[in-house]
């Protein structure tokens, strides 16, 4: 019998590592933060959180539940992390300034392409599937000034915002799959139901998949703006942190904001890195867009989302509009590689710890790992003798 305490510690480490395999490093970090947990439940319209800095200056408002550890990028690319939450007021500290600028991505792309032009694989040179998928997890979300209410179960005004978004993309030559399925009721399981829709959409092999929502903060001024004298609503991008694709999707969001900042300054309000998954584990090119809030007119949201549509083709490198330089790099973003490496590292760590517990010793784990490579695969290849 081995030392019980050592084994108990191993069990604890293994469970933690197992959790990391499942939902990524951010969950691991949040497990140790004083206020654990989060999910994609938005508050009732009208209930919202205010996030301020240490001097009490207001930074953000959101109808999403704010937890310590949440991070966000403001419109001017300042990166904050929420330190504490008291009631519905959160305090955030500045981490630094994000270099979100389209010319930076362009330079990065130019260097990469020229450096590896000869080595690039044929698959990189083929055109990206010219498809964008759109769906709505919260199918009731509506806009009071236009729709008369904030919620119309199954028939929300959000579908009409999605229609304008889709039409704008189509007018640019993009094939759009706009899914009109309803996912009522608007509860904690809505994302499980919309996961099925997202999964169906992904079978069309879209270049990106976008879940269009609206926020629920009561202050319309937070979202309204004018671009070229046209009244619009700003857009906010939400990236879920509890999945293996987080780095890739965060990078995607930053590129969208960079292009948008270049073309329509002020259109993208910021990026919120929320706890939760938002079905973003299904694709490394998935994003949640908050098209305004329930107290603005739907027309503003529609005008805003139409401008936002113009950012997608160039960032994704798909045809339709003249792309400054041709879109994404062939090698993918650093976020992709980081996410892939994390997944592999977590698997190796989890397996190693499991084997040690299972066999009771490191030697046993090594022996079993060898056995896996020899006996198990021999079995698959049909060479294992019948015993």
């Amino acid at each position, binding site marked *: 019998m081995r030392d019980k305490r050592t084994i108990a510690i191993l069990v604890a480490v293994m469970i933690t590592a197992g959790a990391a395999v499942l939902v990524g490093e951010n969950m691991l970090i949040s497990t140790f933060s004083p206020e654990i947990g989060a999910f994609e439940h938005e508050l009732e319209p009208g209930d919202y959180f205010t996030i301020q800095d240490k001097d009490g200056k207001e930074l953000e408002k959101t109808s999403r539940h704010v937890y310590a550890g949440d991070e966000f990028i403001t419109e001017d690319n300042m990166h904050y992390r929420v330190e504490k939450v008291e009631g519905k007021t959160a305090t955030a500290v500045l981490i630094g300034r994000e270099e979100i600028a389209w010319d930076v991505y362009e330079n990065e792309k130019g260097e990469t392409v020229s450096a590896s032009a000869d080595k690039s694989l044929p698959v990189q040179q083929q055109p990206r599937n010219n498809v964008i998928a759109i769906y709505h997890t919260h199918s009731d979300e509506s806009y009071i000034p236009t729709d008369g209410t904030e919620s119309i179960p199954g028939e929300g005004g959000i579908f009409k915002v999605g229609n304008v978004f889709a039409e704008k993309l189509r007018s640019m030559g993009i094939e759009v799959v706009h899914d009109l399925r309803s996912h009522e009721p608007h509860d904690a399981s809505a994302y499980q*139901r919309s*996961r099925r829709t997202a999964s169906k959409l992904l079978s069309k092999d879209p270049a990106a998949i976008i879940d269009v929502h609206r926020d629920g903060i009561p202050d319309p001024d937070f979202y309204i703006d004018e671009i070229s004298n046209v009244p619009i609503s700003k857009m906010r991008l939400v990236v879920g942190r509890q999945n293996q694709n987080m780095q890739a999707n965060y990078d995607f969001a930053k590129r969208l904001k960079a292009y948008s900042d270049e073309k329509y300054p002020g259109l993208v309000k910021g990026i919120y890195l929320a706890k939760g998954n938002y079905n973003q584990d299904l694709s490394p090119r998935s994003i949640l867009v908050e098209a305004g809030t329930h107290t603005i007119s739907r027309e503003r949201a529609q005008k805003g989302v139409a401008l936002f549509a113009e950012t997608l083709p160039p960032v994704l490198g798909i045809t339709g509009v003249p792309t400054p330089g041709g879109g994404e790099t062939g090698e993918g973003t650093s976020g*992709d590689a980081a996410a892939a490496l994390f997944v592999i590292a977590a698997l190796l760590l989890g397996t190693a710890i499991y084997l040690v517990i299972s066999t009771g010793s490191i030697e046993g784990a090594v022996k079993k790992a060898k056995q896996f490579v020899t006996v198990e695969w021999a079995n698959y290849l049909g060479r294992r003798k019948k015993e």
Partner: protein
Amino acid sequence: MTGYPIGTIALVIVAALIYFGLGQRALDRLYLTDKAALALIVAMILGGYIDIPIPFAGVDASVNVGGAVIPVALAVYVLTKAGTAKEWIRALLAAAVTAVVVFSVNRYVLDAKPWQTNTDLIDPIYLYPILAGLTAYIAGRSRRAAFIAATLGVLALDIVNYLSALFSGVRTTIAIGGAGIFDVIVLSGILAVGFAEIIGESRERLQGGPATRGRDKKLLAGLKNENYGGDREKDISIVNNPDRGDDDER
């Protein structure tokens, strides 16, 4: 995936292979051979593209082959193979308890305003499988019972949703198992076996081996270590016996 950056393809393939690989290892423990488990994984991937519509007016409802039909059929198969009546009853009871726990958490914990309860640990996509896996293992106390309970328990949530949609008349979509192998039904079954494995292995390790007192001699014969009852090295015939208690050590 043509035209995607290499990094993106690598990320998707690595994540999928790991998920399918772990899934195969989990199914492997359910009276299945390695090859049968692999075949089922492939069947669930392909079956994910097949939806069978349920023809009831007013509700857009369907059942997915990969995400619901195959895992539920497997659960029923495992149930019919259960060695004893006790195991059979335990597995069904565990399924009922799991259904109640998942439904209650969905209805009364998660649906409550988050800032009041602050009980949200992680995303429901992962929470349901974890709840189902833990409940199923505690109630069922075996990997097989855990699989049955988690699969059927999470399926029950869809049935409740379906019935409420049928009666409320609100437009919604009940695509049972619609995300195929990535659906919460499959995820729950696989995670439940994983939990049973981790908890079971750790417990046995802590107590210095599986509990043997009062166990059927036939069951003990399947155990590998000679101190526990059977001597595996001398009795090779049991190696391929899928009814053994711990068949993960082939």
